[in-house]
């Protein structure tokens, strides 16, 4: 197959986290009985008037900010006209001429380099109703009609399925952290479409475009783009052409499937929505909305790097928002973030997963956690002690010191006592000494196990291991 340059643009719709809908005061909810969350505005009854939800504008300002977009201060809404039963008004209220945000970007890391994925624009619009196709009837549920959305459109600047995947992961993380949307692809609160074309050389015009719609997961976006590129390459290699078309990704076939050929361009006959006057944003409104944006994932990365957290821990903590927020409340203290993150990601996370609990549902306070980290640093507590104590730490109100006292934990941190025990263990395990001296590392582990057994787990493991090695080396 010949080499071609792929050009990809991504459109993402996300539902916004508001209490009520965008143009009516019906509840914005998911998973309720069909047509229970509607009113005359959502149903498009004649004579009804839309009124814009203030929170939608605030959330859109926040989204534009975290996507590094410029914010338009004067805007209007437009009607996108089409005949389809998912919208009883026969038009969708959207922003065609004056999107609230434009000229933004999201930065991704690809092959060790940073790349800015440029965002052409992001606009506000209403969601349509949900239609379910049965054998000979289509069923409509208007609960989703009028749910606020933002659509985020990139420039055609993405050049592979992998880049698209990284962009979507970063976008999702950014929107989640800014409390814009819950971005659940499986529930439809985040929906992705990809526009794919290929061309021979940079100087050539863009090739014919295929749009892949409603892809069910981020990994399938990558896969569907890769499959579509191969399909187009084969066609061009055989000197075939194709018409602009809409396709979908079939996860069973593992390939894209034709939905329809676009004979003409869009005929949506956009015109300004006369029922909603011009909307003017003030500097104060923008300032107030921005003030509520929590620390972004990239700002967190920077902070954790400064606090010497390992890259692995950093990414795991950021993937778990509650742990990250918990840790950030301790930013003013001189807490060791590496040890703190080890504890949060290790024993504490296993407990939370096992009990299906959030950190908030435990008795772990910032103060108690700081104390725990300090007790690890000064070796009052060993990893074994923590395992033994953890349930009590997380379920009881007592302080760490009180729990240590109650459980009678006292570790051997005295060199001379430990040395005595090590001598005893070595006397009883001469074979293992020989093994160690002839280069078998496993012997060290065995001997260490014997020391821990002899001390009933109360030896400081690091100290014991160092002393044991010292003793063994002296026998060389």
């Amino acid at each position, binding site marked *: 197959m010949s080499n071609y340059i792929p050009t990809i643009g991504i459109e993402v719709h996300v539902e916004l986290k*508001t*209490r*009520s809908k965008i143009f*009516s*005061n*019906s*509840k914005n909810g998911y998973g309720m*009985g*069909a*047509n*229970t*969350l*509607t*009113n*005359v505005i959502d*149903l498009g009854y004649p004579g009804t008037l839309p*009124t*814009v*939800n*203030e*929170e*939608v*504008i605030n959330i859109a300002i926040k989204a534009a900010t975290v996507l590094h977009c410029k914010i338009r201060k004067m805007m*209007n809404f437009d009607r996108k006209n089409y*005949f*389809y*039963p*998912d919208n009883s008004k026969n038009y969708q209220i959207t922003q065609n001429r004056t999107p609230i945000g434009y000229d933004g970007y999201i930065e991704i890391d690809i092959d060790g380099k940073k790349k800015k994925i440029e965002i052409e624009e992001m606009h506000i619009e209403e969601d349509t109703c949900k*239609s*379910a*196709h*049965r054998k*000979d*009837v*289509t*069923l*409509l*549920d*208007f609960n989703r009609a009028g749910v606020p959305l933002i659509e985020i459109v990139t420039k055609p600047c993405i050049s592979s399925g992998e880049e698209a995947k990284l962009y979507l992961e970063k976008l999702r993380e950014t929107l989640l952290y800014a409390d814009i949307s819950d971005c659940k692809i499986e529930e439809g609160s985040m929906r992705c479409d990809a526009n794919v074309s290929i061309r021979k050389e940079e100087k050539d015009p863009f090739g014919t475009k295929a749009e892949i*719609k409603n892809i069910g997961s981020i990994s399938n976006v990558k896969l569907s783009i890769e499959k579509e590129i191969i399909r187009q390459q084969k066609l061009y290699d055989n000197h075939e052409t194709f018409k602009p078309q*809409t396709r979908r990704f079939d996860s069973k076939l593992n390939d894209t499937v034709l939905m*329809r050929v676009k004979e*003409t361009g869009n*005929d949506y006959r956009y015109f*300004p*929505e*006369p*029922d*909603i*006057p*011009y*909307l*003017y944003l003030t500097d104060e409104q923008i300032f107030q909305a921005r003030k509520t944006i929590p620390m972004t994932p990239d700002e967190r990365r920077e902070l954790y790097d400064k606090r010497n957290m390992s890259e692995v821990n950093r990414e795991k903590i950021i993937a778990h928002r509650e742990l990250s927020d918990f840790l950030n409340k301790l930013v003013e203290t001189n807490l060791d973030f590496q040890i703190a993150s080890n504890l949060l990601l290790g024993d504490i996370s296993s407990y939370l997963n096992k009990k299906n609990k959030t950190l908030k549902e435990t008795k772990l306070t910032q103060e108690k956690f700081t104390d725990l980290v300090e007790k690890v640093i000064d070796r009052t507590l060993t990893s074994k002690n923590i395992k033994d104590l953890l349930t009590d730490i997380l379920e009881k109100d007592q302080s760490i010191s009180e729990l240590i006292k109650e459980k009678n934990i006292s570790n051997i941190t005295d060199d001379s006592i430990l040395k005595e025990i090590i001598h005893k263990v070595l006397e009883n395990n001469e074979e293992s000494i020989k093994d160690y001296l002839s280069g078998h590392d496993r012997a060290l582990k065995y001997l260490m196990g014997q020391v821990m057994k002899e001390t009933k787990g109360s030896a400081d493991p690091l100290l014991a291991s160092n002393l044991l090695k010292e003793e063994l080396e002296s026998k060389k």
Partner: protein
Amino acid sequence: MQEKLSISEVKHVAELAKIRISDNEQEKYQIELKKIFNELEKIEEVKDYDEEIIITPTEEKCQLRKDEIGQMVNPKDMLKNVPRHSGNYIEVPVVINE
């Protein structure tokens, strides 16, 4: 100026409007639709569409609503206005599109 639309233009408009029209009607609309289009073209000449167009008849600014939940429609009442329904769902002929 062209007197009438081509048959294919009429068919295209009919398709967009999702209406079926007979051959006789096609010929009729070739002339009638063209007359309407001619009127619309006059509007294009009058106003540059890009800047600060008037979108509402008053000079009012958009007033925002607080994000609060209000009264919703009882599905049973709503379904009285619907020709066919299945449970609480509204039934329409099968249309598979976007």
